């Protein structure tokens, strides 16, 4: 007899594969709807005036075939793990992605950690001081966090913190005079720590701090609000009251019961928040000259670099699918009712 969780997982997995195909179809359709000609974007002005060169460009990139053929061809290559070659960088798209995805991952990951630490702390404080001044203050702060336009905050942070106050180091991932650490994960902080290059580690963290903080503003607000209500709910439950009645000291009650109970829904929300962090990178990366997929996506999209755009779409879609899957599994593990209704 199959375990219900297994069946639940299998079903979700099948849906995920369908979603992934849907993602490629949508990305492909949208990119081809964009008015414009990849040849115009990738050839020089003089070369563009030469039909022979334009024809060669189209043939090389398979643009001379009808769209459905192009799509099927793409899927065929995709099944073999071939994402094609970027028309701009003239490199395989997976090589490009291998370079840019870790940068974004590092930024979004740092922002997520920051949001979890700050957001959960704020949320717990607010819940415990419910309706007091601190709670009101944190409420306004968290609302401000979800209300501030990320692109504007990035600009402000860059102008004031970087330019006027000179608190943050320069743009990019590392000072240009520093050599990146040996590539293992692609995350500079992790790689530098693994190689024991502590000056590089410090440099990478320093470069990471400001953009991560800007990016985290929204998710900090989100997590503060969610944690607050999650903790309030736990605090109101019978077993917490019972534990207190048994005479356990307040601190132990808090850490053992309240946080543990509140943590799972919080992590679930954090998983979902990762998505909004990925969205945010599109706006933040350009201002901080962060070489991540946000910039890569924007540049590829405006240059109609179809293989690159498809690659980005797939990666982002895959991350979403995986995150959603994890979230659903967590729900399924915690709350068996979900298995039957989802």
């Amino acid at each position, binding site marked *: 007899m199959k375990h219900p969780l297994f069946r639940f997982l299998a079903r979700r997995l099948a849906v995920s594969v369908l979603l992934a195909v849907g993602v490629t179809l949508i990305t492909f359709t949208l990119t081809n709807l*964009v*008015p*414009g*000609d990849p040849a*115009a*974007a990738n050839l*020089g002005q*003089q*070369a*563009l*005036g*030469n039909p*022979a*060169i334009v024809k060669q460009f189209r043939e090389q990139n398979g643009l001379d075939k009808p769209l459905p053929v192009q799509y099927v061809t793409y899927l065929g290559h995709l099944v073999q793990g071939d994402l094609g070659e970027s028309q*701009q*960088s*003239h*490199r395989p798209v997976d090589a490009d992605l291998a*370079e840019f995805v870790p940068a974004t991952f590092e930024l979004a990951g740092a922002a997520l950690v920051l949001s979890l*630490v*700050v957001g959960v702390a704020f949320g*717990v*404080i607010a819940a*415990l001081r419910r309706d007091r001044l601190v709670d009101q203050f944190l409420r306004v702060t968290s609302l401000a966090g979800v209300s501030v336009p990320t692109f504007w905050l990035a600009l402000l942070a*860059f102008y004031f913190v970087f*330019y006027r106050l*000179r*608190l*943050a*180091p*320069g*743009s*990019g991932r590392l*000072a*240009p*005079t*520093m*050599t990146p650490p040996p590539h293992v994960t692609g995350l500079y902080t992790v790689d530098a720590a693994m190689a024991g290059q502590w*000056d590089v580690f*410090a*440099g990478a*963290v*320093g*470069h990471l*701090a*400001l953009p991560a*903080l800007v990016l985290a503003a929204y998710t900090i607000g989100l997590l503060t609000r969610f944690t607050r209500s999650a903790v309030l709910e736990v605090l109101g439950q019978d077993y917490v009251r019972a534990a*207190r009645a048994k005479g356990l000291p*307040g*601190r132990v*009650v*808090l*850490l053992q019961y309240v946080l543990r109970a509140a943590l799972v829904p919080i992590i679930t929300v954090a998983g979902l928040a990762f998505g909004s962090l990925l969205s945010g990178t599109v706006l933040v990366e*350009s*201002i901080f*000259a962060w*070489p991540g997929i946000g910039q890569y996506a924007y*540049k590829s999209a*405006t240059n*109609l670099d179809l293989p690159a755009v498809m690659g980005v779409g797939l990666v982002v879609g895959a991350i979403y699918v995986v995150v959603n899957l994890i979230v659903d599994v967590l729900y399924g593990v915690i709350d068996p009712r979900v298995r039957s209704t989802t």
Partner: protein
Amino acid sequence: MPSLRSVPRRAILPVLVASAISLTACSGSGSSSSSSASGGKSLVIDTSFNLKTADPGRMYEQTGLLVDRALYDTLLTFAGSDVGKPVPALAESYELSKDGKTMTLKLRKGATFSDGSPVTADDVVFSLNRVRDLKGNPSFLLDGVTVKKVDDTTIELVSPKPNPALPFILPNPALGIVNSKVLQAHGGTQGADDKAESFLNGQSAGSGPYVLESFNASTQVVLKANDKYWGQTKPTYGRVVIRNVQAPTQKLNVQRGDSQIALDLSADQAQGVGGGLQVAKGASANVFFLLANHSAAVSKTTSNPKFVEAVRKGIDYPGLLQLAGEGSVQAAGIVPSMINGALPADQAPKRDVAGAKAALAASGIPNPKVKLEFPSDYTLNGLSFQPLAERVQANLKEVGITVDLAPAPIATALQNYRDGKEEMGLWWWSPDYPDASDYLAFLPGKLIGLRAGWKKGDAAALESAGDKAAQTIGDGRTQQYQQIQTQLNAAGPITPLLQPSQHVVTAGTVTGLALNPVWTIDIAALGSK
């Protein structure tokens, strides 16, 4: 739950404080650690990338020209800012035949590639043939030119028609000489089946003062000094990092000392940099122009010559120069001021609102409404197209013309432009080579003329004047080009607007900087004090 509430304040606040402290500590240590990593002086150049490849045979973008100028030597070159006279490089001398069809070059002895092997006549033939036959962006530079090795030190370039521009074309970094043996070992050929591009994006194979350490078309390019450089003067900087940074950030970086050169600042951005920094400025060779489609099939409005006259008289040129900032100049004709054959500044179009209104009335078009397309995501010398377009819109509104702005990403905008479907457009032209013949593209039936809906035969006299100028050598050449531009200004669909200013901000220690219209700056010529 009063007792519960009192506990966590102590438990949690220290965590927060600690994390805040670690943040500031990290950012503090990051900024102080920008010391040189490898031996020799290192140099950081910030520029807004327009870069696709480092392969000279395929490269034709602004940043690629900057990079390849340092990696590959060409047969001839320009000294500093002076593009009026090609000077020897890998060729020690050259001669152009009287009919202008044959160019003979004598190769220099003793030049070597970065792997130590000598630069030979075979390498030259291979390199130039490769560029011509790749069907790449720079192929047009050598259209129809035959490359012949006469002997081990003599090269002959033969053109089907008189080609007086050739000495001005050869300095283009796209025509850099590559090591043919190395290239052939890595898939290099002299034709469209060449596969050497990815190799050349990993390392260079030239004889220039620098070699390629790493290349990334969207983030940064790192050059290091060529240990085996054959030239007399070795480059000052051992390692050069060229980073992709948007113009506003370039300014901040150079002010903070994170970089030594900010390459493409607009005049606004370069204002008040202060702090021991140097500003090199001059008019750029790029020309912004306004296109009004000549084809009645595209637009009944812009194909009316009186309408175009109204536009030309309606624009407030000094006002546009204010937007472009100090150092920018009005483009008198389509040929920029630093190239022989440019129109004198006093012959530039002038604003005449009354004349514009009269012309508009004479056009017989009541309340004309036109669509102006321009690239929204492109900057040239730090200047974006949008403010210029908005100002043109305001200017023409005063005359009585309603302009509907249609910005689009450059890929989209370029397509309409190339297909000749734009009613009006705001575009630019950068010289392919510093010779007035490059600007014949603006005549009817030619590259830009066609984009403006100006077909062959639409202005027969002008076209034959162009054909004549293209083949004229020596005397009278300048006058011919000036006359062509006067006619273009009087009746053409193109209105030249301005040459933006080029501002390069450098740290006080950088010396020897000269602005060059083709490759912006020669990195190897930079010194230090």
